[in-house]
């Protein structure tokens, strides 16, 4: 199974390398540069990726552990990643204090926190202290509604 995952990863790297190699042809070049254009280095990198992808697919190392692959389908990790993504995407639109408190609350819930005091106090304290620290100590203008 682990060798198969290496073969899959190698295949993905190989395809990515080929796509990059094709993509480099779309890079504009400076008419004044005759030899080493902007395409030169990405082309080298894509060739390296193709070679390494082939090597990994052909000779998988098989050193992965079961726990590392199972992390990929772990429900808590996936939900935390999804909440983090939502927090980052809405960062500019939502008041920092509200967005942060909601993020902390939901992630805590996902990770198994159930005590009401903890679920109320922690988001409020984290949100307020990080806001005060960055806004007034480091002078960072965080997005706020009021």
């Amino acid at each position, binding site marked *: 199974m682990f060798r198969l995952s290496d073969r899959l990863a190698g295949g993905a790297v190989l395809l990515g390398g080929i796509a990059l190699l094709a993509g480099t042809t779309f890079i*504009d070049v400076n008419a004044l540069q005759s030899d080493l254009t902007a395409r030169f280095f990405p082309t080298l990198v894509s060739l390296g990726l193709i070679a390494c992808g082939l090597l990994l697919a052909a000779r998988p190392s098989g050193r992965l552990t079961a726990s590392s692959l199972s992390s990929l389908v*772990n429900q808590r*990790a996936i939900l935390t*990643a999804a909440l983090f993504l939502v927090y980052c995407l809405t960062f500019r639109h939502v008041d920092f204090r509200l967005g942060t408190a909601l993020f902390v609350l939901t*992630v805590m819930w996902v990770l*198994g926190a159930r005590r009401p005091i903890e679920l109320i106090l*922690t988001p409020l304290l984290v949100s307020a202290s990080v806001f005060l620290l960055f806004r007034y100590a480091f002078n960072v203008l965080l997005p706020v509604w009021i």
Partner: protein
Amino acid sequence: MDLIPLSLFIDGASSLASPMLLLWIFVGVLVGLIFGAAPGLTATAGVAIATPLTFGASFETSMALLLGIYCGGYFAGSIPAILINTPGAPGNAATALDGYRMARAGRADQALSLAVIASFIGGITSVVVLMLAAPTLADFALRFTSVEYFSLGLFGLVCIAAVSGGSVTKGVICALLGILLGSIGIDPVGGMTRLTADIPDLLGGIPLIPALIAFFAVTEMLNQASLTSSGDPLPVQQVSRLATTIRLFAANKWLTLKSALIGTGIGVLPGTGPTIAAWIAFGESARAEQSEDEQKNGNPRGIIASETANNAVTGGAMIPLLTLGIPGDTVTAVLIGALLIQGITPGPFFMLQSGDLFVQILLILAVANLFILIIGLGARRILPSILNIPPRILIPIIGVLCVTGTFAINNVTFEVMLIAILGASGYLLLCFGFPMAPLVLGLVLGPMIETNLRNGLTANELNPMIFLTRPISGTLLAGAVLTVLWSWWRGRRRGQ
């Protein structure tokens, strides 16, 4: 060797024997510790913010504050790197690899002690080298052309790809992916736009600190979220005796010396900095055979090497600044402004005309390193209490700090979105057993490797043999090849 006359040394030292000046160094170190430890804020930002405050100050006061921030900031990034796997600055990323593992194994106290003492040794060694051989080293650094810079960059990258653990092929793939990320934006030689997918925010390339936060902190946050269900509590934090830590340094004295010299040497080279120094020294430490316990629970040698080299850059980077007027890293670039405010132009005549000021700079750097030692060792028992916070509370706090720290760098929300995307990608790679270290180093070294490869080839009529025939370059490339062969041989032996 170019030695400083004793009379000049005494003059410089006597002007520093003022409690107020010592207080300014202390304040500088404290401010540096805060800036270095906060993700998203760096020593460069601290020095840049403090520089305008020195307009009305004397030379000694201004240097005391700024050099205090410089040294404190370079060390402090190791604190969050060890405790929450979030390097405070790019130069501390290598420390996170072994430091965080040691903290998770209940040895945060020892990891922090190692980082403090290593930073002190690195800083002091670089000051001694600066005192003894500044002009000689500056002449040596001027001999580096594009050819040598390319080989140095490639050597650093290959070392990390080969020794970062697991398969060499996966290490190289990650290094290439890092280089690919580093080549997004405007082509550094020709000025053409590439691989930006028409996103204007990518014109400036992938910013380093958000990428660092994504690949280390966000990835680890998701990894920890997946582990919380396994009910695997952290072991109780052990109290480490200082004598044990000092014995570790005695046992690794050659590694410490080598790392200090690597840090100072790389600091001397303009345009490099602590990140490259720390990774190359870390690569050196990882060459030694590691037991299964060291691989799993962290190896003190990794922290000794990376932190010694990281702080040794401080003195090294001052060499080209003071002798040639060329900054060795980003902080010294800002320090040029501070020197100009004082009416001092750094360059070849600085040591001849202002020898006493040169001595004052040396002594301020030495005292700042001493304060780091005192403050760091004093706080090492308190700091690990962060690890007692339950994961269900610590994980969202890390997430919030990642986002806020990223936003604090440039006030750009695109970079906040970027850490989510890069972090999720990093987690995916981690699940498939790809190491993060070569990815980050590829991002750091990619632009340097590309620019110098293209410039080196163009200047030598596209003759690639120039990289082998120049002595320094040829030696570095031979070292890179030997490292890969050795790593491959070690992998085969383990397989058997």
